[in-house]
Each structure stands twice: as structure tokens, then as C-alpha cells.
């Protein structure tokens, strides 16, 4: 503290006091404030720099390919992904798209009811210790690394599917979908629970005072009021499923194939990049084609997150 931080001495009666007393004083708080402002600005801007940087990096490799080599009809319309073919390399991603879509879709079938149900139970019914225990458990579930999930798919679900459904291979859309569903469940549960908790308690009280049962309150008041937040939760789950790599690589069978049943093998966009990038010749067509897949993934997850965000914003703006 500097010496002029002391109490301002009373001026003798009669002399006018200038206001403010010391107009040009800059104390320590002023400097701290400036430094913190710069630091916070740097922190904030670095996020933007990173996103733009990554986008530029990925596009530099990918867009060249899109502009020169790529045949769009083949890219989206063919299931032949043969980047290393001796005769003619083909880059059709239809099978990969179908793989990602079917695995993600199945994952949502598993995890939406599971997560929304869990969120309703935690937010509306569970009390005290049960509630705390469940929340901790869900957080633990979120902390399991994706390769461990892949492990579970490979060593537990695989034999189980073979036994139960009597199929030759258990690494398939069903396997990957279930694993992915379990992986997406924690984040969906947490966000859905937040959405339910954001519904003002006055609504519940009003409905209960009119004689609504707990379930009627949930069904007729809380869920409609939390619709937007729940949509955001589901979308973020979809985004998670779309971008997941390792577990899908391990559990889906990783075969290029248009899946027509849950027991078919499939291959995902992400898994393709992960498996092939190491072997592709740097700067070659294959390498650049994989970057194009990267751009596609990036755009889709970006769009999903943006959409989820507008839902969350909509909810905030309408206050409930």
C-alpha cells in the first residue's frame, strides 16, 4: 500500500475541497486491473486463434484435394473407399457415412431414453444420499477413457452378442452402438439434469398444489418447460457419438460395408482417419482425402454444437 492510501485528513473548515480529491491517482488496484485485463483477453482470444488455426490447417490439406482431385459424385455416392488400390484409387465415403450414421443412430436409441430417464430420476425423484451417489457415479462413467470402452466392446460385448444372437461375429453396429450409447449417456444425463433443474420450482409447487401427482408434474409441466435444454442435451450426445473414434474403431468391426442390420460390420469416418493417416504418404491423394474427411467431421460437429447452443440460448432468453 502506498502512503496516500490513508484516510483523507479533514481540511480545515472553510477551505473548499477539490472533487475528486486526487483526480490523476493510479493505485495498485489500477495496475492489477490492467494486467488482469490483458491476461484474460489473451486467454479468451487464444480459444478463437486455436479454432481458426486448426480449421486453416485442416483445410489447407483438404480443400486442395476437393478442388483438384475429388469427384463429388463418387465421394458421396460410392461405397468404394479404396485409397490404396493399385489400378485406380477410389474415394467413396457413402459406406463410411452410413457406418457413422447407423452407429450414432443406434447409440441415441440406447442413450436418449436411458439418459433422460436418469436425469428425471435424479432431478425430480431422488433425494439426499441416493441423488449424490448417482451423480458421482455418472461423473465416474464420464471419466472412463474411450479405449477402455473399446476394450469392453471387444472382450465383453463381442462374445455376449455372439452367444445371445447366435451370429458369427460380435463386432458390429449393435456392439459399437451400445458402447457409444453408454459413452454418450453421462454428458446427456448431466446436461438434461441441468435443464430440468433450471425449471423454476414455483411451477412444480403450483401444479402439486392443484393435486397433480409427481409424475403428472414431470410429464405435463417440467418436461415441456425444459424441452429446449433437453434438445440441447440430445444434440450434444449426437455430437459426441459422431466424433468418437477409438471405441468405434474397436467395436464396429471396421469393415467397409453398407450396414443393413445391427449385426453387420461397419466402419466410421473417424475410425478411418485414425487407422489410415499413419500409413498414408504425406501430401499424397490418400493423405489429403483423409483431411477432407476431417473437414466433413469438423463441419458436422460444429453445426450440431451450434444448434445445441442456440437451443440453450433460447431457453435462457425465455427464462425457463
Amino acid at each position: 500500500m502506498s502512503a496516500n492510501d490513508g484516510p483523507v485528513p479533514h481540511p480545515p473548515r472553510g477551505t473548499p475541497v477539490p472533487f475528486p480529491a486526487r483526480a490523476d491517482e493510479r493505485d495498485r488496484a489500477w495496475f492489477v486491473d490492467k494486467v488482469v485485463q490483458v491476461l484474460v483477453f489473451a486467454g479468451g482470444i487464444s480459444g478463437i486463434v486455436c479454432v481458426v488455426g486448426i480449421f486453416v490447417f485442416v483445410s489447407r490439406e483438404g480443400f486442395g484435394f476437393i478442388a483438384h482431385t475429388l469427384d463429388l459424385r463418387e465421394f458421396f455416392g460410392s461405397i468404394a473407399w479404396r485409397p490404396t488400390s493399385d489400378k485406380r484409387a477410389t474415394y467413396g465415403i457413402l459406406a463410411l457415412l452410413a457406418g457413422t450414421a447407423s452407429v450414432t443412430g443406434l447409440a441415441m436409441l440406447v442413450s436418449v431414453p436411458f439418459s433422460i430417464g436418469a436425469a428425471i430420476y435424479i432431478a425430480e425423484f431422488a433425494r439426499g444420499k441416493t441423488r449424490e451417489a448417482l451423480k458421482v457415479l455418472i461423473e465416474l462413467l464420464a471419466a472412463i477413457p474411450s479405449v477402455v470402452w473399446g476394450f469392453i466392446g471387444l472382450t465383453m460385448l463381442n462374445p455376449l452378442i455372439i452367444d445371445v444372437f447366435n451370429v458369427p461375429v460380435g463386432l458390429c453396429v449393435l456392439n459399437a452402438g451400445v458402447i457409444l450409447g453408454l459413452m454418450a449417456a453421462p454428458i446427456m444425463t448431466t446436461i438434461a439434469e441441468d435443464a430440468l433443474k433450471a425449471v423454476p420450482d414455483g411451477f412444480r409447487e403450483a401444479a402439486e398444489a392443484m393435486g397433480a401427482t409427481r409424475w403428472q408434474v414431470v410429464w405435463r409441466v417440467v418436461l415441456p418447460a425444459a424441452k429446449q435444454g433437453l434438445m440441447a442435451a440430445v444434440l450434444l450426445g449426437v455430437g459426441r457419438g459422431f466424433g468418437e473414434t477409438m471405441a468405434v474403431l474397436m467395436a464396429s468391426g471396421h469393415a467397409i460395408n453398407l450396414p443393413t442390420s445391427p449385426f453387420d460390420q461397419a466402419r466410421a469416418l473417424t475410425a478411418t482417419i485414425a487407422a489410415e493417416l499413419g500409413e498414408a504418404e504425406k501430401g499424397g491423394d490418400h493423405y489429403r482425402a483423409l483431411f477432407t474427411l476431417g473437414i466433413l467431421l469438423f463441419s458436422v460437429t460444429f453445426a450440431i454444437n451450434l444448434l445445441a447452443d442456440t437451443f440453450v440460448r433460447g431457453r435462457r432468453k425465455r427464462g425457463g
Partner: protein
Amino acid sequence: MDSGAPPLAIEARGLNLWYGSFQALHDVDLRIRSGIITSLIGPSGCGKSTFLRSVNRITERLGYVRTTGTIEVHGQDILAPGVELVQVRRKIGMVFQRPNPLPLSIRENVLFGWRLHREERGRPEPHECDEIVEGALRKVLLWDGVKDRLDLRATELSLEEQQKLCIARLLPMRPRVLLMDEPCSALDPKATEAVEELIWDLRGEFTIVIVTHNMAQARRASEECVFMLLGRVVEHGETGAMFVTPECRETADYIEGRYG
């Protein structure tokens, strides 16, 4: 105290209520006559809301509330073991301090409670719903103002309209008793006057118990008055008489503004 000759709507006997280990009501004995407006006054924290809420049994939303004693509403002990909570709440409507219409349309708000109790008997006819909505909104003098925007979200109405709607949505359930916990405290003076007038008009058809901090409101808008202090009923009598010649010192002190 009244003799017991006029019909009673609410009769509480030896009512004790604990929030966890904190006792908020001590041995409350209260006989509230049917078809009139009774106001409940007393300093902050004396248990007015607690008493009111225990008549609707909405207190039981909190897991840690324990109640002993009896509350008879039109002769039936609502705290008795076999009593269905849902039936109790339906016949005993509650209006809260902050207007809390549900985040639905105006129309759906009016129909909400009625639907809860009626839907087991098949889907209601559309014209039946229309009649109910119009009837209830007319009764609270809201119909002319909102009849062209029944699909508007109720949370977008003004506070005065919201509070009137909160009264209107109770009417289709044909409650016998309306409990109002400081229904005007979130409203400006003009809206307060409007809602008060409305409450006054509903007298006779319903038994109304109204909690208020506003002495002038208690005085002009109620027929009987109950003064509570520290979880106990201190005095209960005809409003006019109580404001002019209170029996207890504490009542006099409170009415004259010597408590807070």
C-alpha cells in the same frame, strides 16, 4: 371466539408442525367459518404461511416436515391416514405470493387442474373446455382482456393478470376453500386494488383465508381476523372489533405497528 353455531370450513385442533427439529406451529386451535374471508396477520416468521400451507398439505413436498394434530375441512380430517392427498388439494385451492402460472397457454392454465382430475373419465369435449375457460376467466374479470389471446403463454401476462389467472385456474375444480398467501404483495397498488376487489367478490361462494402484511388490506377486505405470534394463535375475532378493541396487548402492539 364464535360459538360454533355457524358452519365451520376449517377446524384445526392441537396442530403442531416441525421443519426438521424446528417447531413452527405450536398447538394451533383455529375455527374458520364457512363462506367468509378470514385474514391471517402477524409478524414475519410467525407461521402464517406454514399454517396455510398445511391446510393444502403442500408442506409435505418438503421431506422433513412433521405434523401432529388434526385439521378438519368441512368435517373431514385431512390429516387422517387414509386420505388421498390429491383429493384434498383439489378441493382446497392455493394462491401463492408470487404469481406462478404454468409455462403453458392461458387456456391450458385454466384447464390444467380440471384436466388432472377429469381425464380418467375420457377426453373432454372441446365445447366443454371452452365453456370452462370462459366461465373461469369471466369470474376473475379477465375474460374481456384475454379472450382474443387465449393461446398466449401465461407467463407473458402482466403480474395482475397472472395472479387473476392463478385464481381462475382453481375454479373449474370447484374448490370449497381458497387459501391465499399474500396474493397482492408482488403487485403495484392499482393491481392490488383490482385483485382485492376480485377476492371480495368471491366471498360467499368460497371460504377464503388470506395472509397479509397489509393492515389496511386485512381491515377492509376480511370479515374475521386471526393474529398469530411465534407459531401460536393469539387472537381471533371479527375484524372490525379486533382492530378497534383488541383483546391482547400483543395484538394491539402489532396492529399499531410496534412489531415489524
